[in-house]
């Protein structure tokens, strides 16, 4: 730590005498990189690093340094590491985290330490409404939105009855709540499963007995893989499966054919027809050997946003940089992009379907636009500034 402090001084002294702003822009990447959900963090990390590489290691023309840090999926450890990044390593911006509970734990340490927080995934409602914070920018979406979009789609598609399934914990309730908010058909049953559940045969038997028009699932990570595989094996493929955070590029390699045709929603997909997106996907595959998931795309966007904002306002004046982050127009992989009053995105949402790509890999594919310029439900409650 002593060494890092000294090296900063050395850099300052060596670079352009008289110009204090010459030390590199430091960006902390605080992502969960260990434990079962590590793959999500890895996608985000790789997306961000790819963006930096594309920018020749510079943000807004200034030399930049990325400090990759593992949040370990534990709020207390993440909070500690956030403080280390901001207080000890001198990060100006932190990009992270993946999970909402980590976000709640690090938001204080990051913003009170004088840095900006750019979230490449987590968008919990606490920071979208009254608790919105001028130093926090959510580059992904508000957590409830994908579910609400699916609810709207299910209503429009004429599914009269749906069985809901989610793990028995807070995020599970929230996501099902999002779906129910916009879905106007019958909820046949809500199946609450256990966190980390392995065997879904009991739930699948319930679904088979109910014979609903469709199933809606929120089963992230390994739970989703277990469920989707067993769904197909139980002979339920005839019942349409919609989900959020269940079938994406992080889990599809493990689901493969079992997930084909399953539906979800998002504001980005690898085949979204937007300038630069195809190039990003190809570069990502070439560099990391897998199809990028939304975590990678949003982290890439976060870095691009940062680059454009620093180019416009520099890093010296915090208020100017904040204003630039809010308003600047950057080349997003989602095409048009803007922030709402709560600094959550206002963006288009698509229905996506699992397909097999020409190269044999599995990915989500944008099928149709469901909602344009979607503003989250909490934005009105934000009265920041």
């Amino acid at each position: 730590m002593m060494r890092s402090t000294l090296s900063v001084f050395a850099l300052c002294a060596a670079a352009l005498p008289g110009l204090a702003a010459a030390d590199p822009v430091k960006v902390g990447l605080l992502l969960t990189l260990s434990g079962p959900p590590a793959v999500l963090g890895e996608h985000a990390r790789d997306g961000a690093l790819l963006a930096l590489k594309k920018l020749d290691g510079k943000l807004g023309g200034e030399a930049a340094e990325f400090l990759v840090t593992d949040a370990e999926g534990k709020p207390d450890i993440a909070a500690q590491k956030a403080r280390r990044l901001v207080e000890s390593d001198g990060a100006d911006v932190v990009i992270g985290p993946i999970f909402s509970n980590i976000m709640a734990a690090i938001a204080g340490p990051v913003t009170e330490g004088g840095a900006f927080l750019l979230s490449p995934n987590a968008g919990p409602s606490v920071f979208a409404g009254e608790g919105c914070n001028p130093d926090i920018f959510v580059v992904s979406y508000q957590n409830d939105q994908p579910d609400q979009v699916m609810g709207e789609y299910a209503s429009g598609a004429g599914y009269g009855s749906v069985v809901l399934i989610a793990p028995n914990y807070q995020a599970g309730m929230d996501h099902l709540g999002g779906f129910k908010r916009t879905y106007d058909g019958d909820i046949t049953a809500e199946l609450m499963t256990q966190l980390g559940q392995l065997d879904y045969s009991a739930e699948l038997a319930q679904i088979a007995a109910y014979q609903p028009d469709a199933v809606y699932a929120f089963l992230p990570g390994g739970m989703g893989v277990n469920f989707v595989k067993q769904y197909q094996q139980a002979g339920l493929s005839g019942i349409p499966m919609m989900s959020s955070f269940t079938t994406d590029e992080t889990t599809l390699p493990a689901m493969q054919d079992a997930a084909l045709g399953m539906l979800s929603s998002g504001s980005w997909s690898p085949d979204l027809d937007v300038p630069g997106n195809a190039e990003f996907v190809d570069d990502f595959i070439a560099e990391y050997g897998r199809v990028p998931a939304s975590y990678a795309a949003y982290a890439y966007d976060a870095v691009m946003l940062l680059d454009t904002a620093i180019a416009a306002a520099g890093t010296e004046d915090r208020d100017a940089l904040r204003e630039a982050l809010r308003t600047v127009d950057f080349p997003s992989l989602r095409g048009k992009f803007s922030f709402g009053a709560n600094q959550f995105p206002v963006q288009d949402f698509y229905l996506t379907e699992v397909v097999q790509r020409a190269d044999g890999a599995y990915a989500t594919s944008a099928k149709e636009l469901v909602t344009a310029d979607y503003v989250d439900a909490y934005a009105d409650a934000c009265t920041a500034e």
Partner: protein
Amino acid sequence: MSAAPKAAIALLILLALVPPAAAAIGDPFLTVIATRMAVFAIAALSLDLILGYGALVSFGHAAYLGLGAYAVAVCARHGITDLFLQMGAAALAAALFAAVSGAVSLRTRGIYFIMITLAFGQMAYFFFVSLSAYGGDDGTALAARSTLFGRAWLENDTAFFYMVLACLALAYGGLDRLVHARFGRVLTGTRESELRMRAIGYRPFRYRLAAYVLSGMICAVAGVLLANQTEYVSPAYMAWTRSGELIVMLLLGGVGTLAGAMAGALVTVGLEELLAGWSEHWRLCFGLILLAVVLWSPAGLTGLLRRLLAGGRR
């Protein structure tokens, strides 16, 4: 003064010197690490009371850490922000949980005790996972640190560190008295030979239960401090792997010596911090170090130290 208290006092002094040292080299983050070390040292001390002196291998001790942390959140929600009141509430809740779970668990022995304490730990974990009012699985952020006599002194990291250090010193001092008092000797006796204890007129159960409850209460105090340090409360504090980590600290330092428990916590937290900064795959190195300690130095660091010292004298 024998070697053990000297070592413990040396550790406490070493910790106390961290904030000035951090200020001198301009890295306030060192104080944050030292705070975490001290918090876990309290937790490790509490576990040492039952594990080291009573041979009760609790694999669910992290539950008390979590109970303490949630006591802060619950109290704060109801407007009680005073640190000492929160500690009292935490200790009370922990005492209740320990009395009930201990009364059941202490009927079993050995491997069964390890597993039944694990079961109670998991019950506590899942209870808080499904507690929507406090964020369930996600946990909940604290609005601010606890207050002392109505003042927000603890917002200052250095002040908070010395508060934690004072708690650690108190916990160490109190436990050191306790293990050398009548109660401690009886507890040690139950560790050495339960049958003998009964044959000279003791009922081991009640002493074990008392130690179990006391240990839970002290660990809950550590939980109060942990929640204050991170300003966040989550069920992750009571995951079973956390209980495993507490045992690791104890074994690394040396079971059955209070100084060893403290040293183990310091070394574990320090090592994690150091290795994590060095490589993404730090767990591999940490595992290898642990394995080396078990295989070649069964009494932990204190055992290693003792052997080195003995070797030097020879």
